[in-house]
């Protein structure tokens, strides 16, 4: 498969704080990658740079064949309005706090961009929005306002809204961190369905390790702006080798030692029959 995302020598700092330094990173088309690591390690920054929400200082990024640099950056391409538009056409993003437009109905939240950016007709956009709403299980909420929905429902609307723009890359920035534990499962179910049914490339920052293990092809452990370890989730999450990964997983999983538990990947008949429940994966590893 071909690479859809490539970071080459990307450097990014906030003031004097270096967040990414000479950062290289590739993602294949259709790949599901989970980024883990402590806060401030640069994982969210990678997503935000991809979504063009943050400028970067040096290096280049290629998305689906389009390379770009920041204005003033060195190199053959500079990001201008046209470039940014092209990038954003391919990339969609889910936010920790959903960021729905509170004054718009659910339907308008989803149809606004397809109508004003993709120039779909209102009727066409409405129809597609209703399809997406039924996909996320909220067909009856089209005329509600975001404040009338639970957090989980709001995040599902946000997923429908992002999908309405037909992105080929979808970024998830801690999509369940702001949710009540009870509501995490419904959102993960939708993401799980997406991962299974679409050839979307997905990049996710999350602390839901069990979920990460279940859906991702690759897990990347970030520390201080570098990927210190990466690999298949069944390897990295179960038998982490880098000490930083070991201590991080230990802290996240609330256990003294890192890792998902050695039996994690072995066929446990009970578990094989019963895929992870509709609700979530909050304190999953204690049993493992």
């Amino acid at each position: 498969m071909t690479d859809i995302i490539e970071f080459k020598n990307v450097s990014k700092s906030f003031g004097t704080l270096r967040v990414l330094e000479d950062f290289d990173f590739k993602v294949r088309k259709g790949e599901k990658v989970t980024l883990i690591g402590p806060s401030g390690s640069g994982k969210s920054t990678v997503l935000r740079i991809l979504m063009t929400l943050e400028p970067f200082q040096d290096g280049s990024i290629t998305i689906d064949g389009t390379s770009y640099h920041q204005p003033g950056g060195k190199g053959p391409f500079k990001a201008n309005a046209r470039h940014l538009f092209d990038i954003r056409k391919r990339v969609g993003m889910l936010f920790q706090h959903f960021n729905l437009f509170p004054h718009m109905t659910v339907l308008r939240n989803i149809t606004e961009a397809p109508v004003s950016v993709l120039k779909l007709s209102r009727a066409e956009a409405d129809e597609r929005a209703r399809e997406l709403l039924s996909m996320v299980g909220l067909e009856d909420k089209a005329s509600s306002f975001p404040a009338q929905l639970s957090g989980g429902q709001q995040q599902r609307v946000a997923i429908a809204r992002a999908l309405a723009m037909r992105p080929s890359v979808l970024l998830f920035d801690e999509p369940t961190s702001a949710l009540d534990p009870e509501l995490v499962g419904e959102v993960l179910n939708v993401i799980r369905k997406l991962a299974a049914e679409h050839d979307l490339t997905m990049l996710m920052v999350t602390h839901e390790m069990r979920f990460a293990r279940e859906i991702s092809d690759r897990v990347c452990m970030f520390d201080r702006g570098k990927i210190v370890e990466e690999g298949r989730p069944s390897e990295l999450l179960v038998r982490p080798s880098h000490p930083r990964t070991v201590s991080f997983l230990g802290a996240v999983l609330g256990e003294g030692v890192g890792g998902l538990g050695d039996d994690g990947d072995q066929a446990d008949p009970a578990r094989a029959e019963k895929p992870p429940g509709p609700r979530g994966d909050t304190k999953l590893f204690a049993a493992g």
Partner: protein
Amino acid sequence: MINDINVDTSSTLSFFLDVLPLLLKGLQVTIAAALLGFAIALVAGLFFAILRQAPTRLISWPVAVFLEFVRDTPLLIQLFFLYYVLPVYGITLPAFMTGAVAIGLQYSGYTAEIYRAGIGAIGRGQWEASTALNLTSGRTYAVVIIPQAIPRVIPALGNCLVGILKETPILSTISVLEMLNLAIIVGDRTYHYTIPLTLAGVLMLLVTSVFAYLVRFIEFTVPKTGIRLR
């Protein structure tokens, strides 16, 4: 109009009854000038507030300087400038229009600040979601930011409207026959100032009260989350 001012001063009541319709006519001019000035301030202020935050300094700085200038110089100077200087360059507006434009421009300095505060109160997440959906910045302002900023700025804009109403007597200096001007003319003709000036004050109080009430009403009618889009 000035020439057919004819009031009966024989008794307080008849004087009052003669002055009242005259002042009510002036009041119409006052209200018309205030509303026109306010409309100009509402539109121009929004325009300036957005340009003030333009990404290029070529636009944002001149706008900032202009706004600072209109806020920091007296309305009277601006009014005289528009009324006496512009005609030298061939631009002649009727006195009423000149007054409304002067008030509107001066207050656009204030409304621009009010809009800026309202826009600034919208969370970063709304901008980021708009970027992620590839909305243009114009579209982002039009359907995401401004509809949400409006409910937050209605009270402050309402204060501007009341402020503008109270500024209108300044138009008497360029011969607009608004209420205060008429009250003074009556006083000059009859040497009785108490009734026309008191009446003008009371009428002004009534109008500002009604306007303040209307602003309250609008404030409670517009949903707190923003002007609804379906």
